């Protein structure tokens, strides 16, 4: 019994800048999972496999990794055999979206010449931006 699934994220990858940001966000997530980011990785599940643009190798009940693909319309999908690991995958999805948002805000603010200060608090991630005149 397996549970091959595709979980869609809110982020849309439009260009090289957003792809580079996705890679950085994935590296943050992989580090939290004591893993790393692989590119062009074969994600294997119970009787099924799929090559993914990115992957975070992780021993799951039937799967070998959490695969990450960018669809034709730029959406991000988490792909793999998530049997028994659905909570983990939902957490990865949420963490990926939040990390991507935080990195995007930091990068945008720096491009605007603003100062940036980041803190992780109980409520979430606080980004304090100093707006110069």
């Amino acid at each position, binding site marked *: 019994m397996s549970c091959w699934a595709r979980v869609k994220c809110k*982020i849309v990858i*439009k260009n090289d800048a957003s792809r580079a940001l996705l890679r950085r966000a994935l590296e943050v997530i992989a580090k939290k999972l004591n893993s790393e980011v692989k590119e062009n990785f074969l994600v294997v599940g119970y009787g099924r496999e799929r090559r993914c643009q990115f992957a975070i190798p992780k021993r799951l009940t039937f799967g070998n990794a959490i695969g990450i693909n960018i669809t034709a319309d730029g959406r991000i999908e988490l792909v793999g055999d998530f049997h028994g690991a659905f909570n983990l995958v939902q957490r990865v999805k949420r963490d990926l979206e939040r990390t991507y948002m935080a990195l995007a805000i930091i990068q945008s603010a720096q491009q605007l010449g603003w100062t940036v200060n980041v803190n992780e608090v109980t409520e979430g991630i606080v980004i304090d931006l100093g707006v110069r005149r």
Partner: protein
Amino acid sequence: MRRIKVLIDRKGKIIVDAEGFVGPVCVKEVDKLLSSLKELGLDLDIEEHKLKPEFYQRVEIRKEVKVGE
């Protein structure tokens, strides 16, 4: 110092709070940030927009003109 505080909560909701601005400048600065985020694939919908009393304050510009000197 003019500041924009952004909170990304545990569910991924973003709450923006602008401090130290007078007049509609805060809206312009937040818009700058939002359009920059759009380029990075984050198209954020504003669900709720609360304007603080400072938004309605006028920026006074004084100019002294001396005549006949």
